[in-house]
């Protein structure tokens, strides 16, 4: 009797549990002929560069692979939210996309977490791999020496300036600052002679996120000396560096002396879009420390078509702190196509990446997204060289460029840098205090033995 009851209970319980559980398991693990590709869709509904490009790839892939389907999985979110979302998707085979677009900024973090599949076996038999520049190949290399992604372009950074506003401020159209002082002097001249115009934009704080760290802080920091952020020889992060404080002081100066945008605008998460589609085209910003991609906002198909930009906007490399050799600084990042470790269709996923990286498609993508080429065949393509004014200038910055220390904890370090920048921007903390807090934060991120102190 009792055993009947118990077994009845068990049966009921199992049934009750099984019904909803099976109902929840709607992964795509189901259909063996469907490959899923996850990418970030812009939160600006007018921007569909990636979607349009991938729609073409989907057609091509499905034509070449009869009976197979390529399913686009757009994640419409800000960059930080995109990272969190795909990381969570990749934690379970039910939700993991097969092909995933990874930012080199955190690829090492995801490699270490075991989210990605090494691609060495595929790359070995792939002729196009020789076309890639060595630095680009290294961008997706894990600490284990294996390669986890195929880069699809890179970027460089420098100064954009408005020649018309410069003329009003009595500054030359072929402006070529040699030191930080020259940059600030030009900004002061604009402030004095062209009222109502923001002289200089340097991204800062947690709002713009990685843009603040890379376009803002690291462009300054890497002009202060050798390995100012991470010492690769000692394998330690650098604390208490003079360069760090000097870079913070530059940021503080820009905002304290009102040479930059109003802090409430500067800390707005959407400030990068406003710089590109509002402040620069409307002539309300004279100098922008920004990336090579700005131009793609102003072409006829861009967010904010602005035919005059080719005449109005000048470009110049960002100088080192005191003009020390090599005289200019640039930072580079970029994205890769990778295969999720939990994907059950690695072979198909790799074929998708091969389709993405035919010479024709790679050129098409580099041009459409306004990227800097990472393949020598694309770099020589006439279509690329004539794609947008200034592409030769930004391609030329590659020789000055630095890559971020691609380590798993980099995203946390970046976040600590943003907090330091934000506190000097708002005036909440002095440079010394903000740098001190960064040092403490660094120790908690990398451990006391993962940090080396520089002489004050």
């Amino acid at each position, binding site marked *: 009797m009792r055993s009947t*009851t118990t077994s009845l209970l068990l049966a009921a319980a199992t049934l009750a549990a099984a019904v909803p559980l099976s109902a929840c398991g709607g992964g795509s693990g189901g259909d063996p002929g469907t490959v899923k590709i996850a990418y970030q869709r812009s939160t600006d509904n007018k921007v569909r560069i990636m979607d349009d490009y991938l729609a073409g790839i989907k057609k091509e892939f499905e034509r070449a692979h009869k009976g197979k389907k390529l399913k686009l999985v757009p994640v419409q979110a800000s960059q930080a939210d995109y990272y*969190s979302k795909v990381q*969570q998707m990749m934690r379970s085979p039910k939700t993991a996309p097969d092909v995933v677009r990874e930012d080199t900024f955190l690829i090492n973090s995801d490699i270490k977490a075991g989210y990605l599949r090494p691609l060495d076996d595929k790359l070995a038999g792939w002729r196009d791999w020789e076309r890639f520049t060595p630095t680009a190949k290294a961008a997706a290399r894990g600490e284990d020496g294996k390669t986890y992604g195929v880069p699809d372009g890179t970027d460089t950074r420098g100064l954009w300036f408005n020649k018309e506003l410069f003329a009003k401020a009595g500054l030359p159209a072929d402006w070529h600052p040699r030191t930080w002082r020259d940059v600030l002097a030009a900004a002061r001249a604009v402030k004095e002679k062209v009222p109502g115009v923001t002289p200089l934009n340097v991204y800062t704080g947690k709002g713009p996120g990685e843009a603040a760290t890379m376009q803002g802080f690291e462009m300054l920091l890497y002009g202060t000396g050798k390995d100012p952020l991470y010492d690769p020889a000692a394998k330690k992060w650098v604390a208490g560096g003079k360069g760090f404080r000097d870079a913070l002081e530059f940021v503080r100066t820009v905002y304290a002396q009102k040479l930059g945008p109003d802090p*409430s605008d500067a800390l707005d998460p959407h400030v990068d879009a406003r710089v590109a589609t509002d402040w620069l085209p409307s002539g309300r910003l004279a100098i922008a420390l920004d990336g090579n991609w700005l131009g793609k906002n102003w072409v006829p198909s861009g967010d904010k078509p602005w035919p005059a930009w080719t005449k109005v906007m000048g470009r110049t490399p960002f100088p080192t702190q005191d003009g020390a050799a090599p005289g200019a600084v640039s930072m580079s990042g970029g994205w890769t196509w990778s295969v999720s470790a939990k994907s059950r269709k690695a072979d198909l996923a790799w074929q998708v990446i091969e389709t993405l990286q035919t010479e024709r498609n790679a050129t098409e993508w580099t041009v459409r997204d306004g990227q800097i080429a990472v393949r020598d065949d694309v770099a020589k393509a006439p279509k690329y060289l004539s794609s947008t004014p200034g592409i030769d200038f930004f391609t030329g910055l590659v020789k000055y460029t630095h890559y971020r220390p691609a380590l798993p904890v980099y995203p946390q370090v970046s976040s600590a840098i943003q907090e330091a920048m934000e506190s000097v921007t708002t005036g909440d903390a002095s440079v010394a205090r903000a740098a001190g807090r960064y040092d403490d934060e660094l120790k908690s991120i990398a451990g006391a033995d993962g940090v080396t102190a520089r002489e004050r």
Partner: protein
Amino acid sequence: MPGARALAPPGTGRRGGTGPGGRGAARRAARWLPLAPATVLLLVFLAGPIAYCVYLAFTDTQLTGQESASFVGLANFRRAFADEDFRHAVVLTLLFTVLSSIVGQNTLGFALAALMRRASRPVRALTGAVVIAAWVVPEIVAGFLLYTFFNRRGTLNAVLEQLHLPAQNWLFTLPILAVSFANVWRGTAFSMLVYSAALSGIPREVTEAAEVDGASGPRRFWHITLPMIRRSIATNLMLNTLQTLSVFGLIWAMTRGGPGNRSQTLPVFMYDRAFLKSLIGYGTAVALLLLLVGAVFSVVYLRLMREEV
């Protein structure tokens, strides 16, 4: 499970069945049978995730950048109490809760309910509709509405400019005040409804008797109205507080917890640590501490309800 007792026949507790393994035990088990599916569902979908959260809080799980997580005991909690930002977030959370829920929503809701009892029908309908409209818009929509209202180039400044009053930039200078206002704007309707119901539940004879005895308005309010709706006050405070403690979307849409960390309440702090800095374990520990803050408030209100006047 409130249903469990209703199913038990009278006297089961006292008679104690017919010993273990006998028919009584079988009958008792059989009585539980209809509840089994619901119990299992609750265990799987409610207790399961909660238990997993509690477990996570004692590990160093990260969203990325880590090969495997390990058990770290109380390290996350120690880290929280040593973290200046965490303490700052606790203070802001208390400030936000007291300002917007206990002071703002609660008193404003009561005032509206009391005034509407005396108002004419059209006025009542209109006020009710406006206040409740603010409540029914989704949190994120309310967040963006109020962002455009308080923004430096937003509606509020446009109005102030028309009136030749000085402009404000609260989202930047006093963000915690701006989000508290937003929460009052959005959440007052609920208090208003609770108090409307409570006030209409006071028997007319009692109030009339007091009037005949010559009690003034304030005295009637203090000695009659308040004691009679005490339980509603406590219930309303409890629900409001718990809701306000967990407000995330509103603050995220308006300020993202910034500038700096000047409006980073615990839920925003939690999100920052768990998803932006990938420290899932630490974020979950903070979530448990937030639960604790809510529990403290709840206990206070429950005592308030129990005490006899």
